[in-house]
């Protein structure tokens, strides 16, 4: 079925793209994503991957070229990070509105300024409303698995939406991990060739990217909203099918020691593994704490989250980005909205941690839990907490 290797996660992701038999790749290097597309360019140059590798002068052009190759009917891939994602901004919305199943890895990194190349989620949270499917991974194996699965989800004719697989910059992208690489035969069986619903073809001409008058724009947006919301069912189905292949089952919202937990932490991405250590240690010390991991960010899994949190008294939402001048971080704001119509809900506190590469250890989570419990008891003193800030 597969073989175990020790491999840098970026290289594993590029092998996932190779195994998925991507046909067109357009990308621009940016730290900490560079190793992914650098290795892909080698694979193409060495004849190990039969794809068109388009070198471009910017990320704006990279995603524009991806729209072109996807419109022509090619299985299309790109990757970026931080400022690169920001430079793609206007094209991000066009790719999803035109319903092109492009797959992109984002090696999450802080947005400037001040200039900072280290990991947080400010890049992807600024692109929250782009209408793409957005998934977060916790380790190298998940980065590999979800990159392959993303093609199958995106290209499903009931979905046809571009998909981002987020992996934490450096913490995942530059770390060597032990992971299982699937065999080509198994991936081919799981992921057949892409058959576009429409493509640019002189024999059957269509107009793509036409403008929509005020009479039509609202209806096109509604169709997009429904498609993204309904993508949930296909995402879960693809993850189930992959579980049969790999033995690894993924859920939109995952639970760790939530049974009997009065206090729940909510995390995304690689910090979930760190939080698990904190939960283990706190449980040993008799603190009834558990962990909820949010894997699927768009479409937002409302029902799964409500079910996972049911019974808890305090939910601590850990954000890795800020919404400056707003009520809370983006994840906190979303989670609080999800619980607003629910009669029985926990007290919800938002903690922003790990910004711009600030280290988050199990001890950090223990301190967050202890402070949040105090705040919850006394009544919150702040709208949200920027944890660990000096002064």
């Amino acid at each position: 079925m597969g073989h175990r290797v020790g491999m840098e996660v970026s290289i594993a992701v590029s092998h996932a793209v190779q195994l998925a038999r991507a046909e067109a790749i357009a990308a621009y290097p940016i730290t900490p994503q560079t190793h992914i597309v650098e290795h892909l360019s080698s694979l193409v140059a060495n004849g190990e991957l039969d794809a068109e590798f388009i070198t471009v002068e910017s990320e704006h052009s990279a995603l524009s070229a991806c729209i072109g190759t996807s419109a022509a009917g090619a299985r299309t891939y790109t990757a970026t990070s931080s400022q690169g994602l920001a430079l793609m901004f206007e094209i991000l919305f066009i790719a999803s509105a035109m319903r092109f199943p492009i797959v992109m890895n984002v090696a999450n990194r802080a947005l400037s300024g001040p200039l900072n190349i280290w990991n947080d989620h400010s890049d992807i949270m600024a692109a929250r409303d782009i209408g793409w499917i957005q998934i977060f991974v916790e380790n190298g194996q998940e980065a590999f698995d979800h990159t392959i699965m993303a093609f199958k989800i995106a290209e499903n004719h009931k979905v046809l939406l571009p998909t981002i697989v987020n992996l934490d910059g450096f913490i995942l992208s530059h770390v060597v991990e032990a992971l299982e690489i699937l065999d080509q035969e198994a991936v081919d069986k799981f992921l057949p060739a892409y058959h576009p619903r429409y493509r640019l073809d002189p024999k059957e001409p269509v107009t793509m990217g036409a403008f929509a008058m005020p009479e039509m724009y609202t209806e096109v947006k509604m169709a997009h909203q429904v498609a993204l919301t309904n993508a949930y069912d296909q995402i879960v189905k693809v993850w189930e099918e992959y579980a049969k292949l790999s033995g690894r089952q993924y859920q939109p919202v995952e639970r760790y020691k939530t049974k009997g937990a009065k206090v729940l932490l909510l995390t995304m991405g690689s910090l979930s593994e760190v939080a698990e250590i904190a939960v283990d240690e706190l449980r040993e010390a008799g603190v009834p704490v558990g962990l909820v991991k949010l894997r699927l960010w768009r479409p937002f899994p409302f029902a799964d989250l409500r079910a996972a949190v049911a019974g808890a008294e305090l939910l601590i939402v850990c954000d890795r980005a800020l919404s400056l001048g707003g009520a809370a971080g983006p994840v906190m704001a979303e989670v609080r909205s999800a619980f607003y119509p629910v009669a029985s809900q926990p007290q919800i506190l938002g903690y922003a941690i790990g910004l711009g590469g600030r280290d988050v250890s199990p001890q950090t989570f223990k301190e967050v839990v202890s402070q949040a419990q105090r705040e919850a008891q006394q009544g919150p003193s702040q709208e949200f907490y920027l944890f660990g800030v000096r002064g």
Partner: protein
Amino acid sequence: MSKPMDQYTWQEIAIGGILIEPGSAREYRVGDWRSQHPVWTKSRCIRCGVCWTVCPEAAILEEPEGYFDMNPTYCKGCGTCARECVTGCISMIPEEE
């Protein structure tokens, strides 16, 4: 399009807003945007057809005797015809309030 734009439901729109049928631009009644329109002074018109050629919306129609007039459904009032007219016989007249 098989029916006017404002009668399509969201379920009826092709995926990604793709246009499958030709001729959909006929539904874009951009004449509604016009704040001025061209008026030809026939005594000075030499019927050369430059206005017809340069109109970006193909909204100028040739009349039976070879003179020209605008199609009010699609003329946006851009004034390209008036600017390019060889004899200066086209004036742009503001729409009445």
